[in-house]
């Protein structure tokens, strides 16, 4: 890992150290549970925004506790974006806002640190990619397993797996299984309720702004805050929550940062039009035959390897069944270092390791799943155009309408 730091430091040479006055600043949109975690990231907090007065108050209190000094409070995210003190806009709202806010921030010349999943639809993701390019924005998606930390239940970081995969020792094509049995929990508690009684909107919440581009549906507390992931209008349940965490490193392992699967198959109970449900299996297939297999809940074979290849398999805790694999692997080069210091990227203008381009591709995998689940059938996808092939219905879910006045 030492290699990662060598590169940018050298690029900056001796003058690379930033005085506190030059420290990069952030404004956070959405200071619920997730947004408040962004306080800990190294850019300095100068502004927060929330449409729930209680959240805003709690956010302000926390900022005070943490001695951030003067922090501007906004209830309109456009005000935060346009605040000249803000260098980097952190987006920690529910996913139905991510694309709009990312693009607005980019238009205002700000860089973006966005929560996962990157966007709620494939179409929104395409727009974000275009906008980041158009406005030369440095974008980071907030998951990190492709470059650091032990990868959930796998008992290893991703880097040695990448080395093994790129060595070709396992053969090709590969199938990667993400399931309880390989160490991943799909968090099926993020399911919605099929019927919610309309309830009065609490005084502290600007519900209309919370919904923003999402279709209008009567307020019920289960729609918002901690439980919004259970509704298709805002997210995609456990798949939406954990999908990019689990899938993005797989895309990196397989070297699929520039393409998308060409087929998605689902096995699931029928989904409700509003409330997200659970599923048994989702299988993605790439043009070259590589597969990503998701098993939900307890489903699947407990003996499934994490990575299965024609010449060998890898199980949890980096157990590989190729004889003498360590020795064989040593002959191959290590994976190249990645750009993993986002603030350095903002300064050097080099793309972050997980940016809008590869982040959009891994978010596509999540959203291919949510579309196939909602339609309950197998779908074929054009990786280039990023649309479903001859399938108007599925493509309507690629480009979903927004509630006015919002549009992309």
């Amino acid at each position: 890992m030492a290699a990662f730091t060598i590169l940018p430091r050298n690029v900056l040479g001796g003058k690379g150290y930033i005085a506190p006055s030059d420290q990069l600043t952030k404004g956070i949109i959405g200071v619920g549970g997730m947004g408040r975690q962004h306080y800990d990231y190294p850019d300095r907090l100068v502004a927060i925004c929330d449409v729930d007065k209680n959240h805003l108050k709690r956010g302000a209190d926390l900022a005070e506790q943490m001695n951030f000094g003067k922090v501007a409070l906004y209830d309109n995210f456009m005000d935060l974006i346009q605040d000249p003190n803000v260098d980097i806009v952190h987006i920690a709202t529910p996913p139905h806002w991510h694309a709009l806010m990312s693009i607005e921030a980019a238009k205002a010349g700000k860089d973006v640190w966005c929560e996962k999943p990157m966007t709620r639809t494939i179409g929104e993701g395409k727009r974000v990619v275009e906008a980041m390019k158009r406005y030369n924005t440095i974008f980071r998606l907030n998951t990190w397993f492709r470059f650091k930390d032990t990868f959930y239940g796998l008992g290893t970081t991703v880097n040695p797996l990448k080395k093994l995969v790129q060595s070709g020792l396992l053969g090709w094509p590969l199938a990667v299984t993400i399931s309880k049995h390989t160490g991943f929990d799909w968090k099926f508690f993020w399911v919605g309720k099929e019927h919610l009684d309309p309830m009065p909107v609490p005084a502290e919440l600007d519900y209309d702004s919370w919904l923003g581009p999402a279709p209008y549906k009567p307020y019920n507390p289960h729609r918002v805050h901690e439980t919004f992931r259970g509704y298709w209008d805002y997210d995609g349940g456990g798949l939406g929550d954990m999908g990019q965490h689990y899938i993005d490193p797989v895309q990196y392992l397989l070297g699929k940062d520039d393409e998308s699967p060409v087929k998605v198959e689902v096995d699931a109970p029928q989904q409700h039009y509003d409330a997200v449900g659970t599923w048994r299996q989702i299988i993605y297939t790439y043009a070259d035959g590589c597969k990503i297999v998701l098993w939900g809940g307890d489903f699947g074979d407990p003996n499934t390897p994490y990575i299965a290849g024609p010449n060998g398999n890898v199980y949890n805790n980096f157990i590989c069944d190729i004889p003498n694999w360590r020795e064989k692997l040593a002959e191959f080069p290590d994976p190249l270092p990645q750009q993993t210091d986002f603030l350095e990227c903002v300064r050097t203008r080099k793309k972050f390791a997980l940016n809008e381009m590869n982040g959009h591709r891994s978010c596509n995998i999540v959203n291919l799943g949510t579309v196939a689940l909602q339609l309950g059938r197998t779908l074929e996808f054009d990786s280039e155009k990023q649309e479903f092939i001859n399938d108007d219905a599925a493509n309507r879910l690629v480009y979903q309408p927004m509630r006015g006045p919002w549009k992309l």
Partner: protein
Amino acid sequence: MKKITRIFMTSAACLTLLAGQAFGQGVLRNVNTVVGDALQNLPATDMALYDQLATELVGTGAEGLTLLKDMLERQDDSMVAVEYAIGAICAKATAIGGEQQATVANLVKKFADEAKDETIKEFMVRQLMVLGVDYGEKNKTVTSALDLGTTAATGLKELAKTIKKGDKKSIFDALYRVGDIEAAKDIVAAAIPAVKSDDTRSDLIWWLGEQKDSKFDAAILPFLTSAAQNVKSEAAWALTKTGSKKALPILADMVAKGTDAELAAECLKCFPANVADAVAPLFTKASDKGKQSILGLLGGRCAKANKDIVFGSLFNNDAEVSKAAYDALASVVDKEDLITLFTFLESSGKDQQPQIQNAILAALEGLSNAEKYEVLSNRKNVVPSANEALYWPMIISVADLAQTFGICKEAGDDADLAATAVKSYLAKVEAAKEPGAEQLLHYRAVMDYADTDELKNKVLECIGNTGAFPGIFYAAKYLDNPATKQAAAIALRKIATSDPSFYGPEVVALMNKIKDVNTGADFVYDLQRIEKYLSAVPADDQGFVSMFNGKDLSGWQGMVGDGNPYYRYGLSEKQLAKEQAAADQQMSASWAVKDGTIEYVGTGYDNLVSAKKYKDFEMYVDWIIYPGQPDGDAGIYLRSTPQVQIWDTARTWVGAEVGSGGLYNNQKTESTPALVADNPVGEWNSFYIKMVGERVTVYLNGELVVNNIVMENYWNREEGIFPEEYIELQAHGSRIGYRDLYIHELPSVEPTKLTAEEEAEGFEMLFDGTSLQKWHGNKVDYNVVDGEISVESRSRGSSWIGDLYTNEEYADFIFRFEFKLTKGANNGVGVRAPGVGDAAYEGYEVQILDHYDAIYQPWLKDYQYHGSLYGIIPAKNRDALKPVGEWNSEEIYMKGTYIRVTVNGQVVTEGDIAEATANGTYDGLNHPGLNRTSGYIGFLGHGDHLWIRNVRAKHL
């Protein structure tokens, strides 16, 4: 409704059924019933059922969809089901495409147009998306092409100009947006030497490196020796990415010289070429720092061809170089180096030993653990005993569970070895992830070799994590030693609180006892947990009690006769007392208590019988077959009936390979265990046995081997199992041991009795809450639970096995029962039924249905209401049925062609079948069973959950 919903055995069976028109369902179904069935079964949990229901729904066309839309507008209890149904129609119609999609799309569009309610409009618009229709969203904004202005690509001239004059950000901006990448590369490459600032130069080299184009290696190569550190670094990485052949020797040289060794070594780790061959020749002349880096690279690439360099550097004068060589050693060795490594190990200093041991294990790579174990043991056996200790850690690391246990046993006085082996054994048991009951047996076995208090505490800590009930009492034995009492207290507290069913007077006493044991830092929390546990112990249930005091056979008695209860029942009180006295005499000769174990030491077949009789219970018992006997065999008798089987699985000539735990004497129901979970002869095993009513569940060593199976009456095959009798430990001539017997008497169901009137009138009790003995057919989905027949709701889509019928046939009769429904539940009483086929047509069906449920409104046919003689005589009274969740009583009176159905005291249906069908059937369908005069009475389910109790009947 029988005939309709029966279709929901999805899948092949059902499709065959449809295709074959075996019961004519295909022609019987109209739009209403298709919709109703879908509503009762959606959301489908599997894809096959979903496909089937959705296809059927699409088949109902505009009529079905309109019916559903009307229901949706009511926004009542049926709403969610209706949403699923409309969703299924839209998704399926889209998948089918063509005219069907167009029909549905037009209709949904119309619904959206006409919707007055916002929620319904939103729902319809959402469906239009599923249908692939752009609704135009007059009042909504549609995603359109992104209006971001023109994304002007950077032109080449602009690029060149920016590079020359621009600041950092504008250069990157220009590079990101560049239109013609190929031409841009040339421009950048040309600009690299020319730009003034090294910062810009390094940025440009970085960008070019990102393109991974070896065409520009030559342009970058000169900068590998740049004086500017950032330029040099970017050049090194750029050339690494392309694997430049010319850069390799330069980087190797940088490593060897020790200047920029760190940068060059990092690059070479990722360099796609044979790096070892490039750096090895430079080793001799390299600086000490360079030598370290080269050794690291050789190790990193497992450069076996260069192992001489590594071996040669082990004793280098420079300590850092020597250390680097030891670090690399494991990566370059082979089997042929083993002897050398053995010699090194035996002569090296303590600091190097772990690395040499690693290298030895690496040299053994490729062998199985068993082979490694052998090689290492062989070496250990020939070295002087002082050196044996060097081999034990390696041997233990490759030993399997049994081998590790063997080392624990043999360690003897060698305390270090014993400690290593015991700890390794504990870790291996934990890693094997066997069930807690099995882990407990392993931990108890290894406790014999845990000679120090520290080790004992480690074992106790592991035991605390098993969640295995007998572990509570085992841990308690260590409460008396001050050095182990803390660990023992924590272990028993953890187990006791791990399962809410773990209570009983002895457990409670122990939990009270450990309140005084200070368990260290978490003592306060432990105390809270103990108090919480104690306050949660039920007051009205004794819980588990010990059946064996560990010292003698109090609480047990001898076996009278051959154990047949019927024999005992035939004896007078006096005779029984006499025979019991003789049996007890025999017991003291045949059974002995040694070291907390009840052992059979006799030769015959005289079981050890509990002094107390038991009804429903759950119990734990450990057992062991002692080795050295050819016919190891025993068992546990439940309610004086043989038996939960115990035998030596090696006895394949009697079929023992199926394992222990099965209900050996069952003939009609399953007698073999689900899997072999036995431990080897000579080791302990653990049973958990639960008996409720006539059903038995057995776990052997934590594995479920008998799952709620009916136990047959061995002594009289015509009768069911005794409601109450003894528990017996079987003697079958073998030396067997039993220990740790704990039993929890469960509250048992009192059989429902006929009223005095019914008794006098000659009614027979068909289901009294205890067993389905008087019934045949589907006893899988019709389950006796808490004194009621619980009709299980099958996961929708799984095939329904069938109906439950009386054993006896009835011609003219009175049939009485009580039932309780769930929302929308559907069942029926088949009468004069042949026992095969669809009773509604092949015999008669008296409908059972929660006809109040919104999903049946408003279309339910009058002959489908609860109590109707299905399709023949409609129920006249639709209000007698109580709401969902309340018990109903019902009587069906049938004599000749006269039928009367009474629900909760109100006659709901009454009539003469002959009259009713004189001009054809009410539903206009063919009922071939109309001429039947006798048949079975049965419950006709299709997957909905309901309960039935107190079923009785009388022949007229």
